[in-house]
């Protein structure tokens, strides 16, 4: 360290690789002192003139402001205020084209100067040494100072660095051709700059301060040496004139021989670089209390009559600068903000000067020729020889053209400082820097996309995990629930299970309850996997297939065994189930959201209710049997057949309705169980009534009516009671069921409803069909009428309910008979519907 400082003190200057020697073109703008311009007609003060967030606007349209009055106050990260450059009226606050290569509109305060140029109250610090570190940093911050060399980095951030600074490096190199703003400032205000340096020294306590000046500015070097004489810790170092020695990293290498590691900032290696203009502004802010409201701008180029430097108020339109200095534009005039190497062309001269505007260059076509057509790269590597970062511009160019981003990173594209030396020397006039800019932008965009995708993935996984957890919790709850039930209920459930099992084939040993639980689980899983449609679709397809097979099997089974079962019981149960289906469909029609209430719990409850209902029905049937031993069975049969017919008709209707509402159709199924319980009760009650009141009622039916009354009434009463209970329970579980159904997939619902219903239906249907046959003859009158509707019903393609139910009897038996039964059923169904609606 000591050795290094000694070397530096002895005047040692290191070297940088590459670099170019474009014509300096500086002499024409250094012949005159920095000029003062007349006040412009208006000032366009952009809120954003630095790297970082905008300040918060504290003035409003129509407000009178004084010179130096803050227009914004710092807010947020790296936010720096702007100030009124002169006194006047704020005529507007609106987005205006900004000093940016894209001229992107930025919110700007437009001030109409009043010509008074009245300062606001200034608070110069008389004894800066007495200020604390934070106070001094705050003065710099509130004065709106940002790096004036070009980048516009907030100076207070640098001044407040917590890293140990060994070298404060003052960038007075000004290596870009044409620009002489820093040169002239040093010549005229060396003392002020040195005072600014000393303030920085106070803040950072560096071991050594090195001022780097190119050897083409002898006057500035002399002035600075003179001004710095009193301070031993300040060294003025002359560096050879080579572009881009004024680049921050290049200057550090030149003056200290050290390199800033890639991806680091100079402060990481104990360096801090400040531009001379910035340091002068710091001095103005602290010692005179003046915020940053003006800066030196070089106005130059062959189309300018009076080439030179001017004090330009921030916000002064470029047009005003050009007009004041005399401007004779050429065809296809370019106006460059900044130098010829790194500056950018302006789309309009109606853009305000900002804190980083060091030069306005309006060249003609002789001094800066228009770029020629891009020609083939001959790999001469003149670009590599010129590159100050020791990159391989030629290789980067090939990779940029072929969008090989990995290779670009491998070749350190992001270490390119876009100095333009490579493009300057390229004999093929390839706009290399442009290619790099585009590639950098594309890579950044790609990286942003990647980050976004990763975040989305994280979110998805977190959600998945949460849903899984919730599902598990719910599952545990379900497991506990049945246990909490009373012994009686448990017994009933067990009974129901047993019955379902006895009915179902050996192959399918799953109970309805178990199936319901499984389905609920499956549904939940489906909900979790919601984003992954393929998975769900697969699952769904599998389940559909399973359900279909199961149904087929059942149908077969039913054909053989169903008749052996208790006709009455099964008939009643069938009626219940079908009525349920219908009701559900109705509900679906009316209110889709209500339908989605299908809860996994309902299944169980419904199953229980149904089982109970069946049990009661059986009991009732038995009771009737005892009473009318011989006759009751056939009578019951008839009655059951009527009920079955009614229920079938309802189910068909439901299916029809559901057809119109495919969404609802699927969801409705689970609902069925619950509502169906209610409906079943009603259905049974009405069935009796209906049997009595039915038009063209047969004698046989009438005979059975009294018998029916008793039995059905008992069954209905019990069913209703159960239904109420189920409804209550359902209300409790609505929340959770809603959640599940929100993410429901249609497939889940189907097998759920198909299985229990079809198993029951078919048996009943077979019975009903037989009875219907007997009745059919009498009902021949209505045939024509009912044919239409039966046709209609058959057309409806609900595979779940309507088909197995209706096809079986119809295909094997006389359609007419079935039609009669259905006609009757329809009449009842209407009545039922109404009542059911009222009830539910």
């Amino acid at each position, binding site marked *: 360290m000591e050795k290094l400082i000694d070397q530096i003190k002895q005047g040692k200057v290191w070297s940088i*690789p590459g670099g*170019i020697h*474009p*014509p300096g073109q500086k002499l024409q703008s250094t012949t005159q002192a920095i000029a003062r311009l007349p006040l412009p007609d208006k000032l366009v003060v952009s809120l954003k003139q630095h790297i970082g967030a905008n300040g918060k606007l504290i003035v409003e349209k129509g407000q009178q402001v004084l010179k130096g009055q803050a227009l914004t106050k710092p807010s947020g990260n790296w936010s720096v205020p702007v100030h009124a450059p002169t006194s006047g009226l704020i005529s507007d606050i609106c987005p205006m084209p900004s000093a940016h290569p894209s001229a992107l509109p930025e919110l700007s305060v437009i001030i109409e100067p009043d010509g008074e140029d009245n300062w606001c109250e200034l608070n110069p610090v008389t004894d800066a040494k007495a200020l604390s570190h934070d106070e001094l940093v705050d003065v710099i911050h509130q004065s709106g100072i940002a790096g004036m060399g070009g980048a516009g980095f907030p100076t207070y951030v640098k001044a407040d660095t917590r890293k140990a600074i060994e070298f404060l490096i003052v960038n007075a190199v000004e290596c870009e*051709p044409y620009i002489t703003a820093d040169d002239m400032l040093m010549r005229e205000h060396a003392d002020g700059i040195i005072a600014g340096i000393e303030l920085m020294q106070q803040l950072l306590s560096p071991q050594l301060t090195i001022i780097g000046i190119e050897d083409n500015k002898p006057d500035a070097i002399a002035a600075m040496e003179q001004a710095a004489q009193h301070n031993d810790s300040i060294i003025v170092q002359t560096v050879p004139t080579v572009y881009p020695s004024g680049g921050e*990293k290049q200057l550090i290498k030149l003056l200290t021989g*050290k*390199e*800033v*590691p*890639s*991806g*680091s900032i100079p402060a990481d290696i104990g360096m801090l670089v400040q531009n001379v203009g910035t340091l002068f502004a710091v001095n103005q802010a602290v010692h005179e209390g003046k915020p940053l409201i003006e800066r030196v701008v070089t106005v130059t180029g062959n189309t300018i009559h009076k080439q030179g430097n001017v004090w330009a108020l921030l916000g002064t339109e470029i047009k005003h600068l050009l007009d004041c200095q005399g401007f004779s*534009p050429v065809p296809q*005039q*370019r106006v460059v903000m*900044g130098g*010829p*190497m*790194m*500056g950018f*062309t302006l*789309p309009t*001269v109606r853009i305000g000067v900002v804190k980083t505007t060091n030069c306005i260059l309006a*060249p003609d076509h002789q001094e*800066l*020729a*228009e*770029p*020629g*057509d891009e*020609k*083939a*790269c*001959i*790999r*001469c*590597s*003149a670009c*590599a*020889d010129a590159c*100050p*970062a*020791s990159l*391989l511009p030629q*290789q980067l160019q090939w990779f940029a053209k072929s969008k090989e981003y990995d290779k670009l990173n491998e*070749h*350190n594209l992001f*270490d390119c400082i876009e100095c*333009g*030396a490579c*493009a*300057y*020397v390229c*004999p*093929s006039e390839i*706009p290399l*820097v*442009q290619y790099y*800019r585009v590639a950098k932008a594309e890579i950044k965009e790609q990286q942003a996309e990647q980050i976004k995708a990763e975040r989305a993935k994280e979110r998805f996984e977190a959600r998945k995990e949460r849903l899984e957890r919730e599902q598990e919790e719910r599952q545990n709850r379900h497991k506990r629930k049945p246990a909490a039930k009373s012994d009686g209920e448990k017994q009933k459930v067990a009974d129901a299970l047993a019955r379902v099992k006895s009915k179902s084939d050996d192959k399918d040993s799953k109970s309805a309850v178990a199936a319901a639980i499984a389905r609920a689980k499956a549904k939940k899983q489906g909900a979790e996997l919601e984003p992954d449609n393929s998975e769900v679709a697969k699952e769904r397809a599998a389940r559909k297939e399973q359900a279909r097979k199961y149904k087929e099997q059942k149908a077969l089974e039913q054909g053989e065994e169903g008749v052996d079962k208790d006709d009455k019981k099964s008939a009643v149960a069938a009626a219940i189930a079908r009525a349920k289906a219908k009701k559900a469909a109705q509900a679906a029609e009316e209110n889709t959201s209500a339908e989605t209430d299908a809860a996994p719990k309902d299944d169980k409850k419904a199953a229980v209710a149904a089982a109970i209902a069946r049990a009661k029905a059986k009991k009732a049937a038995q009771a009737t049997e005892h009473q009318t031993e011989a006759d009751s069975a056939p009578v019951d049969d008839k009655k059951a057949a009527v009920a079955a017919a009614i229920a079938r008709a309802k189910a068909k209707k439901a299916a029809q309705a559901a057809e119109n509402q495919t969404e609802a159709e699927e969801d409705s199924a689970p609902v069925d169980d619950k509502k169906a319980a209610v409906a079943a009760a009603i259905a049974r009650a009405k069935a009796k009534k209906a049997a009595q009141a039915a038009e063209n009622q047969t004698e046989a039916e009438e005979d059975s009516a009294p018998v029916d009354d008793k039995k059905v009434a008992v069954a209905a009463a019990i069913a209703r009671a159960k239904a109420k209970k189920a409804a209550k329970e359902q209300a409790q579980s609505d929340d959770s069921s809603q959640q599940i159904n929100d993410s429901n997939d249609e497939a889940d619902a189907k097998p759920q409803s198909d299985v229990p219903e079809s198993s029951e239906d078919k048996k009943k249907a077979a019975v009903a069909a037989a009875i219907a046959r007997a009745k059919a003859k009498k009902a021949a009158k209505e045939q024509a009428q009912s044919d239409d509707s039966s046709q209609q019903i058959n057309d409806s393609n609900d595979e779940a309910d309507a088909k197995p139910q209706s096809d079986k009897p119809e295909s094997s038996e006389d359609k007419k008979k079935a039609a009669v039964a259905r006609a009757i059923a329809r009449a009842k169904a209407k009545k039922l519907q109404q009542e059911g609606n009222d009830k539910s």
Partner: protein
Amino acid sequence: MKLTMASSPHNHSHKSLSRLMMTVIAACIPGLIAQVFFFGSAVLIQLVLALITVSACEAAVLLLRKRKVWPTLGDGSAWLTGVLLALSIPPLAPWWIVVIGCMFAIVIVKQLYGGLGFNLFNPAMAAYVLLLVSFPVQMTSWLPVSDLLASPISFSQQLSVIFNGFTSAGFSVDQLRVAIDGTTMATPLDTVKTDVAHHLTVAESMSKPLFNDWFGLGWGWVNLGFLVGGLYLLKANIINWHIPVSFLASLAVCSGIGYIAAPGTEPGVVFHLFSGATMLGAFFIATDPVSASTTNRGRLIYGALIGLLVYLIRTFGGYPDAVAFSVLLLNMAVPLIDYYTKPRTYGHGVK
């Protein structure tokens, strides 16, 4: 006011492709003059033939590729190829030699690979090797220095030889090559190689009238001419010093070691440096930017390996000269060399 937008930098060095190529062509002039002076003006006929052929070929391919002809033809890269090939072949070679060579160089070696900047091999050298392998007799029929010729031949006679194969008097190239003393003359490199193979010492071989004290008559001057042109290119910053310097240094070191090891059969450093195509190769051939290494360290390696190969092939190989072979072999190694010689980027590899 309508302002023109442009991407930075707005300044340019005014270096251009065509100026670069023209400068290289111009730098060939000293060597060309020496060739004309010592070996007759037939080389100028070859030059004209070559320029016509390359222009026609380049234009034809560009038309086929639906590109603008003039901007590409005007960059001068095709002409440079023609010039280098014309300078490399024996001046009295039949006209179709140079025509075939130029066609091959432009159509196959350059344009089929995608045109300027995409060719893997140096077009002139690839064509030279094709010709040498395909037409060894014509490609090695170098006339001796005109002073040594039994019957000096006029320009019209040279024209006649190139297009008809014989002078108006009916002499073939082989007959013309007969020297005053009745012996058939070869190039100095060839002569030494043959003599050493016949168990003569180099000193004995070089005592022949074909040589002066140091190197082959005429050939030394031709090499000197190219050296002057090459130095100009260096000065004009058209080529980097790395390749010529490492090439010549490597050849000098190798031949020096050889000379020390076997003074009787090794012709020595100066002979190697100023014989054959050494200087043309070092400054004009190996420095072809498209097919050469693009990093500074890579260029040093590239040049040094060419020098080594030139020495090895000249001394142990079947051909008297070796620049073309060496350059082509190293062309193939360029991607590898470039990959391993990437410069250290600023801020990388520091603590």
